């Protein structure tokens, strides 16, 4: 009640000199506008930096088969084939922290087109979600292959820029047939350029095809020398009617009398993408438990697979985000301090200018704390009003930046809330000294002040 009355008094006092009120609040207006604009533009930038980094694979999780140890001799990663396509489906179905997942078959083979040939560093057989997992959905030309292509093991492929340059030399590869180990594949799309990865491998030196095509139509996929799966697959390569189009018959059934840990449709790797970089630890533990259950591993038995994430990239990602956030906080803090000092200056001038008013108010019975409260509320009201105008200006500014400079911008309700709280705080902190000074005036001196 009393506060409300003081609020009205403060508003009346401010209304008496709107120009001064405007100038006083200008510092806060600019400060808060700067904070809001910086926050929104900064968040937009950091969001787009984050997206670029995660397109390098920071959100990716790789699952590889485990090792075989015989008589104390380990055969190293991938020496046993334990992963099957159904594992992929189970992971996608049962792990909420996983956004999408693809099986991966690796091969090494020579590509031939007309008189030119090239051995790409990677030939990947994957499902249609591969591009999604790798954040690589933008093709420079053509179309990605579809689920239907995977089901029917169509001989279609996507090429990376390096292969296009080496084999086609300026020609458009779309619709052309290249031969992979003498198996013709039709080029249906060209991947956008991705450059080298973190360890310097050319990521554009890549051919991506449906994993069924690579596995069943191409002999000599990787590991074919060390286990039977590829041989099993390659042996059933030539007769086309062995690859039924129906989903149920997609994978050859495991033979019941097999004593080896070999599955007929095993795959070299599973590539998964977490819903966000923060969800990676969750995703890893979910994948592990799904795979352990599917592979019927007893508690205490070692995993027959290995899960890796891009720890190094994640570190870069986290460091970048933290750096951006801290940078923005510094800018925001400096702007608000500058604004606050502005408020304090003009409030001090205002107190001096209104010395007689203060003396009069004291003479008619205002206590020191009434004067203190009045000036404090005046400065808080100024700061809040300034904050509100600042929020509008800052938001408008960032929208203009988005409109004309095409910078990414992200609205930040947190920043708006912070700006309101901070401008009220600035009002109290920087309004206190002038208000205290006013409340300590001697009424006689103040009344006599010219």
């Amino acid at each position: 009640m009393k506060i409300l009355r003081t609020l009205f008094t403060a508003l009346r006092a401010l209304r008496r000199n709107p120009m001064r009120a405007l100038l006083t609040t200008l510092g806060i207006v600019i400060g808060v506008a700067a904070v809001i604009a910086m926050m929104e533009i900064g968040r937009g930038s950091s969001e787009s930096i984050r997206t670029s980094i995660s397109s390098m694979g920071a959100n990716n999780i790789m699952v590889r088969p485990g090792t075989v140890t015989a008589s104390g001799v380990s055969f190293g990663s991938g020496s046993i084939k334990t992963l099957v396509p159904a594992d992929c489906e189970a992971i996608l179905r049962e792990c909420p922290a996983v956004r999408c997942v693809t099986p991966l078959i690796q091969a090494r083979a020579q590509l031939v087109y007309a008189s030119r040939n090239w051995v790409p560093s990677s030939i990947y057989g994957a499902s249609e979600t591969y591009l999604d997992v790798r954040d690589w959905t933008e093709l420079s030309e053509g179309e990605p292959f579809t689920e239907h292509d995977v089901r029917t093991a169509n001989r279609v492929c996507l090429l990376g820029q390096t292969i296009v340059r080496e084999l086609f030399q300026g020609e458009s590869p779309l619709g052309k047939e290249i031969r992979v180990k003498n198996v013709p594949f039709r080029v249906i799309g060209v991947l956008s350029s991705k450059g080298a990865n973190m360890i310097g491998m050319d990521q554009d030196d890549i051919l991506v095809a449906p994993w069924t095509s690579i596995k069943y139509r191409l002999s000599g996929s990787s590991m074919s020398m060390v286990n039977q799966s590829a041989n099993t697959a390659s042996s059933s390569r030539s007769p086309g009617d062995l690859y039924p189009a129906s989903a149920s018959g997609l994978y050859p059934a495991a033979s019941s009398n097999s004593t080896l840990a070999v599955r007929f449709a095993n795959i070299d790797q599973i590539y998964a993408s977490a819903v966000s970089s923060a969800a990676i630890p969750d995703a890893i533990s979910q994948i592990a438990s799904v795979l352990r259950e599917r592979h019927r591993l007893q508690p205490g038995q070692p995993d027959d697979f290995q899960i890796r994430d891009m720890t190094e990239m994640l570190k870069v990602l986290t460091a970048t985000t933290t750096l951006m956030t801290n940078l923005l906080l510094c800018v925001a803090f400096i702007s608000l301090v500058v604004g606050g000092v502005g408020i304090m200056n003009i409030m001090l001038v205002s107190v001096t200018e209104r010395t007689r008013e203060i003396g009069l108010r004291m003479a008619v019975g205002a206590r020191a704390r009434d004067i203190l409260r009045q000036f404090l509320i005046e400065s808080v009201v100024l700061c809040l009003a300034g904050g509100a105008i600042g929020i509008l200006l800052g938001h408008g500014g960032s929208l203009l930046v988005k409109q004309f400079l095409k910078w990414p911008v992200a609205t930040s309700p947190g920043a708006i809330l912070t700006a309101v709280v901070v401008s009220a705080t600035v009002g109290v902190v920087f309004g206190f000294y002038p208000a205290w000074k006013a409340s300590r005036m001697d009424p006689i001196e103040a009344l006599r002040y010219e």
Partner: protein
Amino acid sequence: MSLIELKNICKDYPIGDGSVSVLKEVSLTIERGDFVSLMGASGSGKSTLMNILGCLDRPTAGEYWLDGREMTGLSADERAWTRNHRLGFVFQSFNLLPRTTALENVMMPLSYAHEALSEQEERRRAGAMLTRFGLADRFQHHPSQLSGGQQQRVAIARALINQPPVLFADEPTGNLDSRTSEEVLRLFQELNTKEGITIILVTHDAAVAQHGGRIIHIRDGMIAAPETPGGAPVQGGPAA
């Protein structure tokens, strides 16, 4: 019991190492319903005496009894309460808040009163007060839109809004022409006789001082020759 009683009030101001004595052992009694003129040349100490009487300043020594309460020992907040409820002030330069309507100027002391009134009630009281002083059609005028006499009447309305028993007027006619001065002084006399408000008027003008019922001369920080309208000089000290 007298309304105001000063006993041996002294006021010293420190200057450098020593101090200068502005009021020297002033003793004075003012009765309820008096109209007292404090007269004296500038530097005589009449303003200091007025500030002490108005609870704006504290004496270095002595006692000040207002309406049965000792004032010199009160805290700043208690003195503020006293100024708000018991005393009214009218100044030479009116001291109205600029760019604020007459009504809001009059309402101002109410906002510092302890009992919270509704905004409506405050407006009603302030309006009644202004109407009483012939400013019924000036509620929404700013001080700059009012004549000197009207401004001083707004100031008087403001001084009386909390119904204090004592009204202090510090050179209230100093900025007014003789005709308006006369009007304002007649107003004071009216308030004194009709409402029984005790009026203490500070002036250096003998003609103005004549309007009061009693004139107290101050010279060099002492009460020189208090006299009554009857002309019989009374020695300084309790005149009751």
